[in-house]
């Protein structure tokens, strides 16, 4: 895997257009997932362009100290944060655990009753309402299948904290899906 990465990086550095196209194809998903979760629709294309240009221009400085995906993910995450900086979003908006996420004894498990397509839409909506950091963690861990160690390098947090926030994020999504308002809407 690493030798492929090295070859690809070397080819891009040598100015082979098809190599950069390949890199774009390979990491488009990762970048798009992060951008999709963090950036409003109108700005997504610009941010994606910005991220890939930073990747292209910064590739000379990439020293293979981590996986290429981690490095690109890091650029994507920090570019998104930078873009959102004017709006001053808090990474940790209301992070303290909400009551009920500890065990969920009183909740009915509506998740098991909702059809998958509907569930997808609702989960998407609930994720969009989460703090930036939670959204990023859920995307990197579940959609991009990244390990906790890689994610911790991307978001600059210790592994234990990442794991902890990931648990909270999922518990919160589950809790919100099981809210009475959602139940009534069904």
């Amino acid at each position, binding site marked *: 895997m690493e030798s492929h990465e090295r070859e690809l990086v070397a080819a891009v550095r040598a100015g082979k257009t098809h190599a950069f196209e390949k890199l774009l194809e390979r990491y488009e998903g990762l970048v798009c997932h992060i951008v*999709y979760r963090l950036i409003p629709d109108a700005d*997504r*294309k610009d941010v*994606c362009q910005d991220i*890939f240009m930073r990747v*292209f221009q910064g590739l000379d400085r990439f020293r293979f100290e981590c996986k290429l995906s981690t490095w690109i993910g890091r650029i994507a995450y920090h570019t998104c944060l930078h873009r959102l900086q004017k709006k001053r979003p808090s990474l940790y908006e209301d992070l303290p655990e909400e009551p009920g996420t500890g065990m969920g004894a009183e909740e009915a498990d509506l998740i098991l009753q909702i059809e998958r397509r509907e*569930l997808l839409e609702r989960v998407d909506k609930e994720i969009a309402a989460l703090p930036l950091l939670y959204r990023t963690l859920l995307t990197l861990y579940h959609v991009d299948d990244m390990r906790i160690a890689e994610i911790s390098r991307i978001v600059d947090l210790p592994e234990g904290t990442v794991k902890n926030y990931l*648990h909270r994020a*999922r*518990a919160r999504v589950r809790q919100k899906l099981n809210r009475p308002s959602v139940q009534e809407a069904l």
Partner: protein
Amino acid sequence: MKETHPNDRELQAWLEHDSPQRDRLRIESHLKQCLFCRRRAESFRVLFSVLSTNPGYELPLETRKQILGRAQVSFSRRQRLVLGARLAFYGVGLALFAAVSAYFVDPIAVFERIRLSLIDTRWIDERVLTSVHTLFLNLNLDWRLLAFALVALAVIALIDQLFSSLGRRFFLC
């Protein structure tokens, strides 16, 4: 002894095979007898699977083309800079060498030695060499002035490189 339900965190860790063995055994034993927790575990499992679904956002074709275009332009510019810098570097070296040589050595005498050597090797016809020699003598060049011009050109090329690297267009690169 009353057995407590595992909390959300413990249940998630168990589903991901990330709980310590003691917790794992306790949770598994608990799940065997607790329908409520089995349903909780199942709902987390479904949630995990939904969370793993690709949100389906892809890079529009137009954006992809724009990125590739910008990368191409950026690379061409970098290549031009590298090439220009090399040329300027070698130019300065060559010009300095020429200047020093012209100051200390008589270029006509050097050329004469080269001409005689080439005549000896018989690689080039003697008449051609003699014609070139005569041409040089007739031009009556000021070698020091020529060397100075070369140095000036190389310095201009270097300044041009500096401007280009600062993102401003000058006139050579």
